[in-house]
């Protein structure tokens, strides 16, 4: 098993870099049980010792307010690692030690990996390691995680000190609080209240801090004790409020910082340079967050990211499509026409191709975003845009997800949904996840292109612009609606650090990108393949007795089924499609969708669009008995629609509106469910979006027809 160690520390302190240095590529990414917080673990060997390393989420504190902090402290209490390695940024010692103190108060074995010694030195900060170690009473190892310097020293210290419990730290919180603490500790100890897990003093502190998690646990274990402790807290709160105009929570934090200051003042840290000196980062910020230059630069960066993700991934995506097209062609030749062939080509190959077709996109997107995140630019973007996004109950960092999803037409909601991971505020993140699918992804574009070419050929550019505008305004308004209804609650505090600009390491970027991509393949892949087969079945069964050869279901992007130009067979395909489950659904829904101007052919196409939005085009082709229609070149279908009964600019625009807002494709739905941590949200986005789309389309169609008549 080896020695179990947990890595803990502030965000931006180099924790991930240290984790990579320790474990190399031997790491495994998963989630903490029941929550969406990422859990990374790995092994490392040094000399004769083997270590099992768990990377705890980066936090500034150990309160009960955020999931990450609860996860971190629960892990330590439940899993009892032999040692907590606390990564501390030497160039930012004062704030980093705040977390260290809280670990020490829990009475667990801690050592400090004092990272970024090089940065501190450059800034003229001199740290007396021996003194810091003796004043805190725990081992301190100087390091430069970026270069791996200090790695072996750290592991040696861990091996030597593991299991030697550090004496728990007792900070004096001033007479009032100390007296209350003593009183509480005595009773907690004698009653064994929560002491199976926590130190008595820690439990008392958490009661004074109004820690929701501990209060709940306490109430459950011993309601009498809980009442008594709460009354002591109330009394003290009242006392502090009247005498000092403060409260226990605030006082405790103030005293912790006071304790740190007193340690640092004993000669631990000396600054040899003017502390008001303007750092390089500040100079960059003068330009990057400048009132006019900042937003201009941001637009350029977003365009660049977009170009990088979608243009450069086009080549590998092409290889993927080419390969699966070739494979389908081979199967086409090998198997005789029939159900099996249809299943293999339209169900399995298109399904697997659909899953893997997104992989290059996701890789490029994560590479680009990791780069922006690791350099520190992402935080600046959130800083500049927060004012706008906050209006709609979102966060400045939401912009990334919107852009990647198709905020600039042609993105993709799958990597977009995954890009929402950079958001740390839970409510804002969920609202972002649920609204990014309204953006115009690349797969919706063929649908728009078809309709715009057929009915708005004179104003193509203007209509496309209006479509983009509607999806942005719609998404933001829906976000606002969700944040004031189902995801209600005040904004999560913004309070955010702007880390100094840093050049990311190639290794860090590569590991990060690969592990995210692999997670997508592993987790989403299996589900997506399953759904792809179900969709194939829906568009194939029950079958018409005569339709044995035709393959009406064009699920996925590779339209590799047997090409049949024969008019008779094409009519047969249309009839078979209408006869299938999807066809029956389409027909059954006609009375409702008529209000929005859609006939049954359109309905079937929209059901098919759940597989991938561009399938709307090819399915419309089948339904209107045109045989296979290439989504990229749908001229014939365009002409057919112009002459079809019931079709006109109003119907076309109603369908465009529906396409903007209705259910995300199932790949995106699966990703939403995975990212939100619950299938409930996947189902919600399907149902809610479809109803919304129907409402919008009906309202538009009815109003427009009324005005025109």
């Amino acid at each position, binding site marked *: 098993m080896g020695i179990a160690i947990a890595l803990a520390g502030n965000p931006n302190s180099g924790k991930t870099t240290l984790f990579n240095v320790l474990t190399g590529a031997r790491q495994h990414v998963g989630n903490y049980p029941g929550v969406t917080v990422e859990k990374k673990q790995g092994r490392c060997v040094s000399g004769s010792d083997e270590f099992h390393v768990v990377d705890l989420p980066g936090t500034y504190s150990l309160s009960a307010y955020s999931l990450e902090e609860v996860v971190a402290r629960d892990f330590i209490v439940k899993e009892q690692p032999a040692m907590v390695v606390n990564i501390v940024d030497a160039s930012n010692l004062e704030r980093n030690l705040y977390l260290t103190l809280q670990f020490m108060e829990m009475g667990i074995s801690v050592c400090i990996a004092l990272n970024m010694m090089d940065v501190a030195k450059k800034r003229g900060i001199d740290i007396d390691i021996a003194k810091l170690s003796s004043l805190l009473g725990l081992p301190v190892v100087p390091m430069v995680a970026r270069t791996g310097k200090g790695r072996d020293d750290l592991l040696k210290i861990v091996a030597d000190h593991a299991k030697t419990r550090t004496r728990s730290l007792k900070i004096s919180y001033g007479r009032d609080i100390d007296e209350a603490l003593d009183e509480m500790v005595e009773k907690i100890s004698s009653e064994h209240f929560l002491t199976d897990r926590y130190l008595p003093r820690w439990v008392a502190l958490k009661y004074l801090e109004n820690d929701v998690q501990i209060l709940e646990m306490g109430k459950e274990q011993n309601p009498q004790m809980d009442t008594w402790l709460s009354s002591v807290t109330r009394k003290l709160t009242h006392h502090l409020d009247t005498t000092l105009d403060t409260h226990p929570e605030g006082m405790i934090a103030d005293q912790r910082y006071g304790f740190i200051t007193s340690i640092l003042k004993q000669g631990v840290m000396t600054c040899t340079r003017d502390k008001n000196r303007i750092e390089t980062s500040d100079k960059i910020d003068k330009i990057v967050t400048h009132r006019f230059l900042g937003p201009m630069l941001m637009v350029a960066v977003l365009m660049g990211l977009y170009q990088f993700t979608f243009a450069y991934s086009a080549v590998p995506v092409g290889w993927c499509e080419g390969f699966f097209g070739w494979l389908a062609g081979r199967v086409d030749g090998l198997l005789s026409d029939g159900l099996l062939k249809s299943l293999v080509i339209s169900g399995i190959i298109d399904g697997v191709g659909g899953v893997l077709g997104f992989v290059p996109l996701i890789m490029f997107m994560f590479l680009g975003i990791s780069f922006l995140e690791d350099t520190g630019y992402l935080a600046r973007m959130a800083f500049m845009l927060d004012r706008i996004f906050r209006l709609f109950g979102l966060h400045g960092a939401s912009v990334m997800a919107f852009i990647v999803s198709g905020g600039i037409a042609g993105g993709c909601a799958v990597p977009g949904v995954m890009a929402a991971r950079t958001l740390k505020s839970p409510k804002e993140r969920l609202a972002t996840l649920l609204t990014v699918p309204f953006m115009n992804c690349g797969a919706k574009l063929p649908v728009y292109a078809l309709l715009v070419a057929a009915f708005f050929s004179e104003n193509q550019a203007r209509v496309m612009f209006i479509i983009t505008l509607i999806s942005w305004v719609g998404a933001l308004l829906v976000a606002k609606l969700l944040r004031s209804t189902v995801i209600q609650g005040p904004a999560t505090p913004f309070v955010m*650090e702007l880390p100094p600009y840093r050049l990311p390491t190639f290794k860090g970027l590569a590991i990060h990108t690969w592990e995210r991509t692999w997670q997508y393949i592993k987790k989403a892949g299996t589900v997506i393949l399953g759904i792809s087969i179900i969709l194939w079945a829906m568009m194939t069964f029950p079958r018409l007795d005569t339709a044995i050869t035709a393959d009406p279901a064009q699920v996925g992007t590779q339209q590799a089924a047997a090409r049949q130009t024969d008019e008779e067979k094409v009519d047969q395909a249309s009839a078979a499609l209408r006869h299938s489950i999807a066809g029956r659904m389409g027909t059954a829904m006609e009375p409702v969708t008529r209000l929005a101007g859609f006939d049954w052919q359109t309905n079937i196409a929209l059901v098919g669009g759940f597989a991938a939005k561009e399938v709307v085009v090819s399915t419309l082709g089948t339904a209107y008995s045109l045989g296979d229609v290439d989504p990229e070149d749908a001229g014939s279908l365009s002409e057919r629609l112009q002459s079809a009964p019931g079709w006109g600019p109003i119907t076309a625009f109603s369908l465009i509106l529906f396409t903007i807002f209705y259910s995300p494709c199932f790949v995106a739905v699966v990703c939403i469910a995975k990212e939100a941590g619950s299938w409930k949200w996947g189902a919600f986005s399907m149902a809610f979006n479809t109803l919304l789309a129907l409402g919008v389309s009906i309202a538009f169609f009815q109003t427009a027809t009324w005005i025109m008549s």
Partner: protein
Amino acid sequence: MPYIQLRQMQVNQTGIIAGIKARGELGTRLRDMGLVPGKEIRILGKAPLYDPVSLRIMGFTLTLRNNEADHILVEVN
């Protein structure tokens, strides 16, 4: 010396934190990041729409929304 709300501070102005009026989650978050009485801060800049604000404290850069900055009292020179 006068006390003012952090929101009213000008860019490049320095001051000493005198009090944090927020409680609950916001109060905890502000304190976790080192915004406690006695610390010196300097306003570095404001976002293009004048909100949020960025400031220097204990050697690092922190950003706050204006409505969060309202809870912080500062003693300015």
